[in-house]
């Protein structure tokens, strides 16, 4: 049985592996890691170290309308591409704007759950200040985020 060139004879047989599918696969993996890295940077600030709570429940597929608010250990509310918010008025104004820009529009304040991601070393006064500002902005649902400890 002869392989290669078809010219017969004793010519060299070429055995080049087809690298194109391998390249496709690797590029897809690269894209996946790049996208995942971006998602983390967008909403879940890694500057915030969460406290642990065994009774915390992860989001389910039904929880579609939520909004994150990151609070660092100094009590500042971190907002992407903006200066940190300090006063309750600033936080309230930010939340009112966020509700106005939300796809649900008027219903946003009733339907959207605000999730506070606060640093474990933050003080209660700062968390309570943020909660009061969220309430003053008109939101109805609130949850506090924590890390679920891994069972060993």
């Amino acid at each position, binding site marked *: 049985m002869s392989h290669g060139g078809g010219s017969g004879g004793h010519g060299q047989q070429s055995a080049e592996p087809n*690298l*194109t599918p*391998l*390249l496709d696969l*690797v*590029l897809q*993996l*690269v894209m996946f*890691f*790049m996208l*995942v*890295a971006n998602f*983390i940077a967008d909403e*879940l600030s*890694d500057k915030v170290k*969460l*406290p*642990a*709570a*065994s*009774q*915390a*429940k*992860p*989001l389910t597929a039904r929880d579609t309308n939520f909004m994150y608010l990151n609070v660092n250990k100094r009590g500042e509310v971190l907002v992407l591409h903006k200066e940190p918010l300090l006063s309750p008025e600033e936080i309230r104004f930010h939340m009112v704007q966020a509700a106005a820009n939300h796809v649900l529009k008027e219903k946003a304040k009733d339907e959207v759950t605000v*999730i506070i*991601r*606060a*640093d*474990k*070393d*933050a*003080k*209660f*006064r700062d*968390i*309570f200040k943020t*909660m*009061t500002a*969220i*309430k*003053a902005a008109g*939101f*109805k649902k*609130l*949850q*506090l*985020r*924590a*890390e*679920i400890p*891994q069972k060993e």
Partner: protein
Amino acid sequence: MARKRKEEPPFDITLPITPMLDMSFQLLSFFIITFKPMPIEGQLAINLPKLDSTNTPPQDQPLPPEEKKDEYRITVYSQAGEVSLMTLVGPTEAPKNEIRSFQQLYDELKKITKPAGRGADAISITIEAAPDLVYSRLIEIMDLCKKAGYESVNLMPLGKERAG
């Protein structure tokens, strides 16, 4: 007079894929090495705080008796951000003994008598904490309340901190 052009033999254009693959592998290894998986996160539901009386809208209709909840209050005092003392007070009971550990608090929460015919849903817990209490301690207390079966949890700042 048209001259017949001599047909050139077809030639293969082969792109050098190997260097591209090398670069892709380097990129892939960079992302794999720097990738830090996020820990699993979850939420603790909480009731929003009441606003100051100046901002409070007129009261709605009073709740029917079957929807009223027995309110228990955990008061948390702090020293340098850490819990120094806790007390648990029921709707009708006198203040109980001082609670000094989370395990003791959990035991006290489990001892609460549920209203007849109704379970833990008929009880709401208000945590009144010192303003300088560290958030992680507050979450621990909330976690204990949820673990003891109480889903309705409110937060309140402690009006005046106890000296010492």
